[in-house]
């Protein structure tokens, strides 16, 4: 835990992938967990939406003494409310999920916040290693389990990847007892989104394997041929050192050996 760091975690209402019920969102839960590890009890957790939403108690049950709700209807844009909430406060770190589990889930919110506040953004954070002297060292989660260390100036916005530490269990009682601060800020209706047609997702068609052979012989070849890589290089008579060097050069060229 680091002293004198103001951390804000933004949370949304999640959706269970199988049952479709509202739940604590996976990445937002991790953002709260990361925030709790950084700031402890001084963490501010903010939700823009309905203050009566029971899912918010699940976040509060992670050990939050209070939770801030910027009250607005479901067709409102969360961005202006969040910007006006964050703007004039002394905040060092804002944590969000990468993508919401409800609504458009475009993942644009952290980027738009960063743009409007003029702060840097680090995408897909796995861990925040340390914060000192106005700089933070963070680990980004790259595909294939790789990590990248990045140093970013405070204040910054980070979206938290699924590789971050899993959210702790929520406790029902403390969740109910948590204090909700409901603020009413300006409400801006999302006009563009009201024009959209929203349906239940159709399963995407599977891509068909089209055989484009023109003659029967080609079709026979396509059906029976073994997949063969296009004639690779074969080294037979060289010395072991030369062969190993050739392999190592290939590994360096592909940048898998660093």
């Amino acid at each position, binding site marked *: 835990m680091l002293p004198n760091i103001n951390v804000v975690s933004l949370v949304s209402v999640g959706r269970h992938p199988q049952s479709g019920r509202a739940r604590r969102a996976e990445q937002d839960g991790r953002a709260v967990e990361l925030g709790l590890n950084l700031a402890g009890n001084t963490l501010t957790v903010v939700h823009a939406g309905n203050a009566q939403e029971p899912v918010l108690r699940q976040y509060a049950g992670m050990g939050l003494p209070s939770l801030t709700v910027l009250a607005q209807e479901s067709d409102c844009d969360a961005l202006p409310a969040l910007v006006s909430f964050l703007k004039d406060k002394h905040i060092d770190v804002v944590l969000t999920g990468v993508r919401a589990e409800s609504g458009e889930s475009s993942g644009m919110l952290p980027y738009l916040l960063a743009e409007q506040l003029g702060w840097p953004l680090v995408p897909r954070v796995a861990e925040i290693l340390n914060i000192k002297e106005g700089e933070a060292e963070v680990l980004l989660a790259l*595909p294939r389990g790789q990590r990248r260390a990045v140093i970013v100036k405070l204040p910054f916005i980070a979206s938290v990847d699924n590789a971050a530490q899993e959210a702790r269990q929520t406790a029902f009682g403390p969740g109910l007892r948590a204090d909700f601060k409901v603020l009413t800020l300006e409400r801006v209706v999302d006009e563009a989104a009201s024009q959209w047609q929203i349906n239940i997702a159709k399963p995407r068609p599977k891509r068909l394997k089209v055989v484009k052979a023109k003659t029967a012989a080609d079709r026979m070849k396509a059906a029976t041929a073994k997949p063969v*890589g296009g004639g690779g290089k074969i080294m037979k008579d060289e010395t072991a050192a030369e062969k190993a060097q050739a392999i190592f050069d290939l590994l360096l060229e*592909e940048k898998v050996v660093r």
Partner: protein
Amino acid sequence: MSHFSSKDSSLDNLLRRDPRTEWIARNRLHPLHSSVVSAGQGEVRGSSGLLRKNPHVIGFIGPNGIKRIDRANLSSAGLNSKKRTGEAKETQRPLHIVENPDAYIMVVADMIGGRLTSHDKDILGLAHQLVAEGNQNTAVVLVCFGESKETQFDLAGVDRLIHLSADEFEGFAPEVRVAALIQIETQYRPEHWLFPDSVHGGSDLASRLAAKLGERPAAQAWQVTASTTTSRGASGSQDIRRETPRILMLMEECANAIEDTRHQVLPLDLSEEFIVPSGSCLLDKGQIEVDSNAVPLAEAEFILSAGNGIHNWDQFHSAAAALGATEGASRVAVDDGFMPRSRQVGASGTWVTARVYLAVGISGAIQHMQGIGQCDKVVAINTDAGCDMVKRADLAVIADSEAILEELTKLAQQYSLSKSQEEKSDAA
């Protein structure tokens, strides 16, 4: 009829049969039989006047390259006038030409490992679908950052190419990249910006650009026409239909890749010199070492896989550690108890997606080859030059695994040593 004209190059090397000559050759009572059979041979008499038969012209070469002698005259393929001229020639696709384009569609590729991914190619295909629906005189421009090893831009559908390969674009440099994209935007004002919605930086770059330009993008789009876009929302449970925005983040398999045409791949330049924006708030410290064996086998980038040809297992493990490779194994190695079941690659194990797969002493059973179907580069070390793994491999080394692994370990250790010394001298 023009379709069947003899100029058609694809028909040139087809085997043309003459059923009548074949029938005459089979029918020994036919008046023309003797002349047909001896057509290609002619009667040769030796110096003593004896009739000489040339044994080499008897028979024909079968489809697998073995000489067949057809004594029963079941098929008289040898009588056919034309022979198959080896492998079918690679047909050249027609060139798609865009002269002085009125508009542009920008595709920003992930280029993992310096090559176009199938996701990138699908998006190029989609860009050409959009061109076909709207203004035909639109060029599809590929914007790629960093080093490129791709040689088939023309077949993937790239009309114009903006290749930004300077050092400042390497590694994690989203702010610099977005600054370059904004310069492209002001210069060319493209109709659309298409990005792969991927974790490889595509969606990050798209979101940054959209935020900078103040445009509302469509994320996770999967059905795109010139007028409407369908995208997934609410964690994939809803389809959102809307007007097609300028910036699109596209899912995999959103369209079919280009298959029928070749494209020009002309370089497109930025009019002004690109200036690196100052005061960047992000400082890349580079990728850090992760425990390569903690990475799940299915998503490991570099796998060193062991099979029946490994005898010195300690050496194999130390080689994997030195190279920083994730360990894999064939079924035999697992059944013999040298590796845990969770490390098995293949049909009953894990289907791997590694970019480089180094197979040591694996001959390549079909179940194993299925498991490595998605690997980009396969390197084989094997004593048997005729095995399937060597046929599949991009680089095959015919040698005993022990000697090669020893050399490889040495090379890797030397490399890391020289690198750490370099860092020390840099710091000093």
